[in-house]
């Protein structure tokens, strides 16, 4: 392992990925042109990463010269990657921010179906967390405040029956869980 002082620049994050339970990409972004330039290499890396991480819930792994911190919930896996010399705790903060933002956006309902339903907002959140490898914001509440734009108070008349039913079900679920 090559030990060296870290170059003082803001480009900390090499990539962010959200995978599903089969290791397929839901969303992924790579910020360094030298790290997995083609979609094919990215896929191969994601497969490899998923195989190494989906069983052991160990939070951090070193793979192919990248430090990768991860977190999973139900059928989703969140990954944040940085260079092997990067400060792991910074990466961890980014991961936590990503996870918490998604969780708040989806109202703690962190699973694939919910992500797919609010994919637009999740994409915006990812964009607000990291811009071209620079951490834009690592505080989930401020990220959410910038993207949680969906107006929930659509007049009842404009909601479909299914939507009403769904929101009623969720409210009931949460009241029971409390």
């Amino acid at each position, binding site marked *: 392992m090559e*030990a060296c002082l870290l170059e*003082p*620049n803001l480009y900390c994050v090499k990539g962010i990925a959200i995978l599903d339970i089969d290791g397929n*990409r839901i969303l992924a972004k790579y910020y360094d042109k030298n790290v997995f330039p083609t979609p094919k290499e990215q896929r191969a890396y994601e497969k490899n990463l998923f195989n*190494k991480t989906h069983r052991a819930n160990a939070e951090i792994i070193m793979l192919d010269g990248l430090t990768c911190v991860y977190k999973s919930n139900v059928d989703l896996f969140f990954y944040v990657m940085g260079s092997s010399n990067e400060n*792991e705790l910074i990466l961890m903060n980014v991961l936590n921010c990503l996870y918490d933002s998604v969780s708040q956006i989806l109202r703690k309902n962190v699973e694939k179906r919910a992500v797919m339903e609010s994919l637009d907002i999740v994409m*915006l959140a990812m964009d607000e967390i990291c*811009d071209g490898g620079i951490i834009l914001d690592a505080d989930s509440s401020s990220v959410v405040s*910038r993207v949680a734009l*969906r107006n929930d108070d659509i007049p009842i008349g404009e909601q479909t029956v299914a939507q009403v039913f769904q929101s009623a079900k969720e409210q009931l679920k949460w009241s029971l869980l409390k």
Partner: protein
Amino acid sequence: MSGFKRDHKEEEDGGGNPFQNIEKTTVLQEARIFNETSVNPRKCTPILTKLLYMLNQGEQLSAKEATDVFFAMTKLFQSKDVILRRLVYLGIKELSSIADDVIIVTSSLTKDMTGKEDLYRAAAIRALCSITDATMLQAIERYMKQAIVDRNPAVSSAALVSSLHMAKLAPEVVKRWVNEAQEAVNSENIMVQYHALGLLYHIRKSDRLAVSKLVTRSIQTLMYTNVSLQKSSYAVCMLIRIAAKLIEEEGADRKSSKSQSPYFQYIESCFRHKSEMVVYEAAYAVVNLNNSTSQEVAQAISVLQLLSASPKPALRFAAVRTLNQVAISHPAAVTACNLDLENLITDSNRSIATLAITTLLKTGAESSVDRLMKQIATFVSEISDEFKVVVVQAIRALALKFPRKHTVLMNFLSAMLRDDGGLEYKASIADTIITIIEDNPEAKETGLAHLCEFIEDCEHVSLAVRILHLLGKEGPKTKQPSRYIRFIYNRVILECPSIRAAAVSAMAQFGASCPDLLENIQVLLARCQMDSDDEVRDRATYYSSILNRQDKALYNNYVLNTLQVSMPALEKSLSEYINLNTAQPFDIKSVPVVAVSKSENDVKQKPEGMLISSGPTKISPSRDENFADKLNSLPDAQSLGPHFKSSEIVELTESETEYVVKCIKHCYAQHLVLQFDCLNTLNDQLLENVRVQLDVSEGFEIINEIPCPKLPYNETGTTYVIVKFPDGDILNSVGTFGAVLKFIVKDCDPATGLPDIDEGYDDEYMLEELEITLADQIQKVNKANWGAAWEEAESTFHEIEDTYSLSSMNTLEEAVVNIIKYLGLQPAERSDKVPKGKSTHTLLLAGIFRGGVDILVRAKLALADGVTMQLTVRSTDQSIAELITSAIG
């Protein structure tokens, strides 16, 4: 059936996933809805999301498709829907690199960026900067400056981050924003501080004085006045990195110790920071400073020790990883953490456990080796192969460090060999044992015994073949060669054809090296001639007929030291030979000799901390063969004969000058092709007709020059000069050439790279002198059995002997390294390693001179007030031997 399965799956997913099975053409088709006169956000948002999702999945769009979709997307600016607008920004960023004419949206984005809606402004800035180029940036400069000092932190951050991205394209423009960035550093918002600090450092990083001012000022604000900066862990981490770099840069001209430096004191003060992130960053910076004393790192290591007991895996990982790195430079300091590290061996995160073990093995004292090995033995069966490989590599390092412990380590390794495991794991153990054997003569016999036992029951063919090869090489040199024969012959009876063939070759080695075993070997080989496989029969027949002749020279050339040409080159030459003229016999000398591969060293340098390798490495053609292909495309190169050798890259200029020139010397039998790679670092000049004018030594003759027609800014062009070596006068084939770079300069516009005027003027640039050395003309050759070749050469080769006093050398190691480098020969029989504490050493070298002349060199070295060397050169050509003896001194 599969369709049914998919339906079923969708049901399981709960109502189907709207984004499954989307197709590019359909999505592009749907995107036409954007063009409708009134935009319906409820319809457009899902379609745009789908498009973005598809791009994210790695779907490639052609420039036309991208442009169409991009223009359709610009229509969506009519809508006031916030989400839709924000998605459009995302789309602009995604497509900006593929679509044409993206600048069309500049005015819309500028409007959003300066508008009232805060939710638009930050994102619009970032989108705008993704479509802006260097010339356009000046147009929006005013807005950017305003945005940097905006009161809204999101806007300010977005502007700062975008400026940093833009600094790659237009550094000059961004530099002008330094005052605004300075103001932003004092912002209340922690992220704005962080981004502003990053931008400020980037602008000023080439000016050390300005950077040190920046750090000093930031430290002061941080310590005395602004409490909020203290909260910004990111900014503090950044500050630590800048401070560490300053310490490093000052290192050269600082007389007092590091701890006097205010920056160092600042970093140390960060050990008491509230945030663990900062504490770790500070500790990491301190231990990675060059030439730290153990006193300086002591505090950092105790911090890491504390962190390594954290309940958070990421923190433990970070701490152990850093300790692992320090273990090389400050083993003693890390020893203090051994107890904590031992606790981590059982960590549930295997990355942490493995790092802990390797650190322990690195720092371990000789006395603790036994205990450590016992500890590893308890859990080695639980971990996966990948981690076992890392452990084995650590053991290898340990074995090299403590040669006396070889019995313990060897026993451990052989136990590991007997366990189940994949090929890669077994191969790494076998490699380690082989390294130990080669490095430590005492361990040889036990090591070979373990390997013999292993091949008795080895399921990996490639590994068995390798071990048999090793037995053939090393076995005959042991005290009792006969005991290995049984193991080898057992393979012939029991194994598959490729192993049987390898075993036959190994037996032949014994036959050739041990005359008293010859008779028995002949009997065994005779039996092998009845084998069912033709390769085995062929080898047996071949070896038994050679051994029958009882001729030392034959043994040497065909059994002990085998063919040394490069295989791809041999294949190429043979197929050419078949196609052309088969009347003349094929000349093996015309095939380039294979360069001794550096793979052995590479293995050692492989980062052992990297827990998982990145799959099989691609086998690329060797460097020489790459060059050979390139050179063959040159006019005239065909007539020079086969390519013999290429030298390392020689720099003929300083790396920071106007023109950077590097030279590679390609050697042929009678010619030298000099490849000059030139780089133009002046952005206001276009160079044409670039060539290197050489002032060659006496006897050399310039055959041809191939100039580089054009050399634009920041591109590398290549020009060649072909030189002929002095005819029949080998003694003069080393020399020094004066070199001048000649070219026509055309001044041009830095932005476009087009020349202002058609007429250029001649100019030249002095280069450093180019030396043609002996090493350029000699190819390294690995002689497996150097002694046998040397004895044979006694009668047939020319010999010259001379004695030198190398007064500038202080140790034998230094002398050995320099002789090898100077002569360009390959050390044989590991004679390049000088045993510790000896005052005499014999270095054995072998190589081939251009034109295919064998060279053997023996250098006897003695240490007494400098190094005295007796050099004996044996070569088939008298003048080459003279050249070598005369070249030293």
